[in-house]
């Protein structure tokens, strides 16, 4: 939910509280307040779903970028263009690293803000020790797999080879399929 919507709902609630409705003699919560709270609940719960969808979209976009860079790297290797292959593999390594961390440093900044505000997208996973703090989709096992592939790819960029690229990319695909592709 956007901040202005939250502010509007809160403002309305305050207005109601200050109105004659709030001074009703009935012990029952005024229905207008219940309805407002119900709308607020929709917005809060919708926000959590929206966060999950957005993080999935970030991951899918990053994975798509990784696929494209893997393709560029293969093409460059086929053409014998080592410099282009190096660049593509480094970009690929960066993308795979960003899958591990559910986004780049800019996204990390947003995640940090949410944590600072007390929002834990996956507090159950955190409590179970399967998710790092603030992570929505990528669990610790997946994170480690992507991190290792990211480093392996980056290290291979200095002397790029098609077989190394293919082997490592298969690992990335497998981790994606196992941990993320089915997430909703």
């Amino acid at each position, binding site marked *: 939910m956007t901040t202005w919507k939250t502010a509007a709902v809160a403002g309305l609630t305050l207005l109601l509280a200050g109105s004659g409705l709030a001074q009703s003699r009935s012990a029952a919560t005024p229905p207008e307040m219940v309805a407002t709270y119900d709308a607020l609940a929709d917005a809060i719960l919708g926000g959590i779903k929206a966060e999950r969808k957005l993080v999935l979209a970030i991951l899918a976009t990053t994975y798509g970028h990784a696929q494209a860079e893997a393709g560029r790297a293969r093409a460059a290797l086929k053409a014998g263009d080592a410099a282009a292959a190096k660049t593509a593999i480094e970009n690929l*390594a*960066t993308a*795979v*690293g*960003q899958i*591990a*961390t559910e986004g*780049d*440093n*800019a996204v*990390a*900044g947003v995640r*940090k803000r949410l*944590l*600072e505000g*007390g929002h*834990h997208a996956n*507090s*159950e996973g*955190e*409590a179970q*020790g399967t998710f*790092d*703090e603030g992570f929505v989709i990528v669990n*610790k096992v997946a*994170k*480690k797999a992507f*991190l*290792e592939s*990211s*480093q392996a*790819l*980056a*290290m291979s960029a*200095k002397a790029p080879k098609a077989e190394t690229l293919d082997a490592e990319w298969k690992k990335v695909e497998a981790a994606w399929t196992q941990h993320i592709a089915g997430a909703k």
Partner: protein
Amino acid sequence: MEESRGCLDPAHRRRQVALALLLAVVGGGGCRARPPIVCYPPLLPPAQPSPQGFHFVDVAAERGLTRAILSGRPDKDHVLDSAGAGIAFLDYDSDGRLDVYVVNGWRLDGARVTERGRNALYHQRADHTFEDVTDAAGVGGEGEWGAGVTAADFDNDGATDILVTNFGRNVLYRNLGHGRFENVAARAGVEAPGWNAAASFFDADGDGWLDLYLARYIDCTLDDVLKAERTLPWRGLEKVAFGPFGLKGAPDYFFRNDHGRFVEATNEAGMKDLALGFGFAVRAADFDDDGDTDVYVANDSDPNYLYRNDGGGRFTEVGVMSLCALDGNGAAQASMGIATGDADGDGITDLYVSNFSEDNKTLYKGLGGGFFSDVSRETGVGPLVYRALSWGAALADFDNDADLDLVIANGHIYPQIDRHPEIIGTYRQQASLLENRGAGALGPGETLFRDATGSAGPGFAAPRSHRGLAVGDFDDDGRLDILMSVLDGPPVLLQNRSAAGSWLTVVPAIPGGPAVPVGTRVTVKAAGKVQRRDVAAGDSYASTHDPRLHFGLGSAETVDEVVVDWPDRTRTVRTDVAARQRLVVRKAPQ
């Protein structure tokens, strides 16, 4: 869930999340010299082994280092109260003896400032005692709340200058010569108001001028500090200082040095602090061994950064894919300090990062090319210092056996834990000394490092709340000594009286050039071992080590080769150099 936020300790936070869920369920809440080598005769008799192993004695008071470091309130109501400050070895008057600079904070009483501490510059006399020359030099700190110190020659005039990073405006003391300094921070463009935790001078673009990286911690005002209350529950037993979680990170800055004036160029250089990490320490070095200088930043509670220099002073942040942003499990740690060196003797620079209590302290093995692997557990570094809260650190050879030992300044941030010492120990903690056993000499089940703290003499026995740490051979006896800052007390100077082997100290010098040739690398080959060091300005936790490069040589009395790689990528090589001397190697004119 308040406990899961606002705490420096990620392990603590994880436990609190688990606790909250549980409560929800249950319903509870001598040399053969030839030009341009200059050989100094030893100022003291050669290092004589003490009868047994490591032996360090605190000689700070008797040698004259007495300035108490003020650190906010006794109860440490705000994280600034417990952050402490850095410390430096430097030679400001170029007399060949190490001097000392101590950074100071303020004393508070509740919301009232009762004393603004003064920094101190100590000049070392020929008898290895120190005299306080702060007033004469004009380097008292300008009334700011000090955080760190970086000593280097930013204006290439041949004299060492002093940058003091502050909670407030930074102070840049330009060395005028004759023991006098002037603050030129405003004119030079580096005041950067805010919480500037630590800094590193380095030449990012190879133009011969030292650029500057500022690691900055949290975005808060003095008013926030003065009004702070301890609101963070600790183990359900105490209320402790809140933060850094719940507080906004301050962006780090990068400044290009344009002939002595600095131009803020963070974004242009590719160093925009997108994640607003809580920056606490910075070390510049050529981590990928490609001839230019990279930058590593330790962030409290956030992933650390590795800025790879892509040439020309353009950087790419590659910490994640280099595997030195997170620990081996992929988790961000609450990092406080940095040490670099070749711990395992494979010729590749390794990286040590000190972290919060009840967490591994992390040793990243260099794999080459700027890539790392977390070897904390298998080397013993992680488990051996697990309980302590660690800050400044150094990889240095304290027994001159030709491998790098590890010294770590420890001290907790919550004085309140003293009421429950059985849980995680006490607020004041011993510094740690981990002895390197030598990678080629390990027995079955032995780790590379062993804890030698308990047998390292009285200097290591005393628990203190240590923060900054700098290493240097202040008494020129060939054994590295340790200088540490301590919260609410005078500094500690641990004189090294250990049994020690042979040694060589190399002093790279550029005639007509900067006083401290930052970025110079020296490789020493002796008795089949190859060791390398680099000259840095800004290291450890907000501190600066002795710029002279010390090598332990074991039993070797001759060094086969000394190779000096200068910042301009030229090289000077000397062969058959006698050990147990301070060797000045001057760069030949081009």
